[in-house]
């Protein structure tokens, strides 16, 4: 059972991304109004906007939080061909009282010649690193060697994907057995049916990222891509938002069988494909244990997918708007009965509905 509350967002244009921080107590939104807003959750559970500022000179496509080990750091990317890194400055006590905080720009990454479509921080065990992807088909990986100095970022890798890129996902697995891995999706709609999902892996010997796999079966434009958090599995799970929702497993083939020194080869299997949205799927995202996948699509719904203990994936929930106007006051909740029966007749049968006797 879910409970929904609403917060007045106050962006002056479409919101393109919403992102919780690591602990779920802060969130960031970015919009075509070129600004980013940061919201904080108070002890009582209410959300307040604590910062709102212009970040780019074009629509801001994505905003993402760094791991809190690096402090309070955000990255944003935009149609204006740049990505930027922001850090929160501990403000004057006056500001604290008013509940405002300040964010300053630490660096602007200007290497792209086209709209930057996604920006994602790497898993924390790799240090302070982020990747961007652009419509010019290049994935760029930057690193800040000194975590206390966020104005120094160096471009470490440029990976050419040959197709306009729309999304990237780092493999969050922090096992020593896996080299860093990044998946890139493309929404290129040109007619040559090139596979739209590529996976790159870092090679310790060459110190470069090399293409490890291409998902040949994904030929429609890809809008979002997400590796699942790894609970100690030996294989990886990747979710893709394209004309439907697809979930792939990638099992590393044993190193002895591949040419030593080359990228890992993977056995790729598709374990689920859902077209319930009946339309383009735009966003996929995993919960923190990687046990539930959420997707949203053109049908205006958010769907939740879960594997049971037999590893079969099924839809376990749908969030959709009912089109009714929301009540004026924000922070309002609609509650559902607790412990709830999804099927209210559980109560009825106890009351002996068949015989019509009322329970005392």
């Amino acid at each position, binding site marked *: *059972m879910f409970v929904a509350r609403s917060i007045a967002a106050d962006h002056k244009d479409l919101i393109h991304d919403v992102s919780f921080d690591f602990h779920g107590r802060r969130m960031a939104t970015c919009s075509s109004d070129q600004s980013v807003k940061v919201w904080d959750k108070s002890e009582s559970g209410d959300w307040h906007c604590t910062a709102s500022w212009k970040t780019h000179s074009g629509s801001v496509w994505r905003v993402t939080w760094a791991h809190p080990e690096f402090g309070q750091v955000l990255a944003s990317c935009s149609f204006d061909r740049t990505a930027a890194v922001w850090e929160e400055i501990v403000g004057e006590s006056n500001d604290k009282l008013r509940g405002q905080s300040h964010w300053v720009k630490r660096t602007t990454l200007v290497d792209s010649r086209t709209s930057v479509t996604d920006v994602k921080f790497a898993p924390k065990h790799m240090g302070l690193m982020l990747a961007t992807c652009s419509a010019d088909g290049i994935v760029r990986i930057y690193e800040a060697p000194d975590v206390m100095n966020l104005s120094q970022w160096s471009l470490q890798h440029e990976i050419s994907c040959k197709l306009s890129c729309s999304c990237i996902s780092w493999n969050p697995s922090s096992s020593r057995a896996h080299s860093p891995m990044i998946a890139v999706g493309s929404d290129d709609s040109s007619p040559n049916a090139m596979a739209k999902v590529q996976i790159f892996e870092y090679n310790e010997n060459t110190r470069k990222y090399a293409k490890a796999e291409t998902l040949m079966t994904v030929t429609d434009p890809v809008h979002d891509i997400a590796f699942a958090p790894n609970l100690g599995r030996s294989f990886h799970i990747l979710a893709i938002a394209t004309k439907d929702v697809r979930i792939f497993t990638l099992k590393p083939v044993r190193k002895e069988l591949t040419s030593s020194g080359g990228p890992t080869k993977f056995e790729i299997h598709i374990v689920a494909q859902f077209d319930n949205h009946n339309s383009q799927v735009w966003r996929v995202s995993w919960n923190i244990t990687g046990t539930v996948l*959420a997707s949203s699509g053109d049908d205006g719904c958010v769907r939740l997918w879960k594997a049971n203990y037999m590893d079969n994936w099924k839809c376990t929930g749908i969030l959709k708007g009912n089109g009714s106007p929301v009540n004026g006051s924000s922070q309002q909740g609609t509650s559902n009965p607790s412990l709830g029966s999804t099927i209210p007749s559980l109560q009825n049968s106890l009351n002996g509905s068949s015989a019509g006797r009322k329970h005392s």
Partner: protein
Amino acid sequence: MEELDGEPTVTLIPGVNSKKNQMYFDWGPGEMLVCETSFNKKEKSEMVPSCPFIYIIRKDVDVYSQILRKLFNESHGIFLGLQRIDEELTGKSRKSQLVRVSKNYRSVIRACMEEMHQVAIAAKDPANGRQFSSQVSILSAMELIWNLCEILFIEVAPAGPLLLHLLDWVRLHVCEVDSLSADVLGSENPSKHDSFWNLPGNTQTLTELELKWQHWHEECERYLQDSTFATSPHLESLLKIMLGDEAALLEQKELLSNWYHFLVTRLLYSNPTVKPIDLHYYAQSSLDLFLGGESSPEPLDNILLAAFEFDIHQVIKECSIALSNWWFVAHLTDLLDHCKLLQSHNLYFGSNMREFLLLEYASGLFAHPSLWQLGVDYFDYCPELGRVSLELHIERIPLNTEQKALKVLRICEQRQMTEQVRSICKILAMKAVRNNRLGSALSWSIRAKDAAFATLVSDRFLRDYCERGCFSDLDLIDNLGPAMMLSDRLTFLGKYREFHRMYGEKRFADAASLLLSLMTSRIAPRSFWMTLLTDALPLLEQKQVIFSAEQTYELMRCLEDLTSRRPVHGESDTEQLQDDDIETTKVEMLRLSLARNLARAIIREGSLEGS
């Protein structure tokens, strides 16, 4: 068949028009963010109205109810007790322990029910009252199901007492009208009934019982045949009932509130010594007869039927679908697993199912600001994925207060989750540094055993000292103890502070030696040497000679070392020149002091004692 079927639950979000807009979302640890948008990424959208709202979706609101919290807390205690039951126990003693656990769970459910019932009655708002009442119903259903499972699966009542247990079960859960009907049915032939039901503590064997019952049954039949009671249709139908005639029983349908009441009554009169394995036949037919094709079975009916058929997996599956909270199925399945009932089934998902359900339940608890602590223990008893799930969840707990942080850290340390400890301490250390609380940052770095960060914070301390001439957080630095060894810089910080303390206590000789050793042992960073040498000045200028000749030579060596390596500045930067001037003056002063001290030291050491 093994899958959790059922339609996905649809949650409506008021205010979002799914026909017009799509939704973006993000997961949080306990909540989910959703906002309306449109997915067409054009540079400038048409005059789409601004996005008015963001929605926060939270799962499992039930976890937050005050009364249910008690249920979760108390069942947690029972769960732990169950896990710790000695595995060595077998046979009767084990069974009685397991039955006791089951009864404990049920009493907790009943207590919760009772409390909620009180709240329902006292509720001022009728809608609220109804909500609570419906919760009471659900709890009641849960207790009903659990009780039946206890009788059939855990108690495993043999043929004779089985019906007694079922009778109790029905009496307990069906409404009071039942007792009325029992009276009506029983009052007609009290003597026969009393003598027959003198069972508890009896010395009769099952066969004797059965014989007796047969005898009595035949007697009743004879009465019917002989039309002994033909004059009174009421008594005749009563007789038929006592013979277990289904039609006669069904005529009294209004008195039987549901089919399982019918079932038990029927068994009472037609087959009181029914064996467990024969139960399912009676159950299915009772359900069908009772419903009479007018209505279809409800979820509860299916659950109970599955239980009568001893299909444990079906029971669990149906319960999982019918109840939105994992509490019930998780605890029940865990208990049945301890009764070794799940293993005898398909091994493939026998123990996996228990763990699957416990993981679901525990994950749900982590969404709650205080119940997460219960979740920790549940994860502990999930051998496959418990630890890694706990690692993922515990990192996400917001560390709003120091107390909470310490609690979380203690839990991680107890389980040797070193990476989580390091990460959490690092997060707190970073937060402290950014807020300029260096002492706090230092203590978190030490706890994280993060040498690099400790070095960083120590550097900040030293920089602060250089700028302000005094230390902050003296207490912390003074009491570092063995933690000082974490990083060289930290060791230096500690020792340097010690030097100041010694100087303050006028232990000049000790202070001098320490100061010298800091430089010669290379613990002091070069950037700090000038400061150290400057610190030596007052010691050099004291009336008595503190530094020995040997030590003075060392100091001179250090000074020369420092000055010889200084870079030559090419540009004529006035400020740089001024700095250089200051530096040069300092160096000159030091040379002078050192020379003077050397002279005095040599004289003193060369002189005879006492002269």
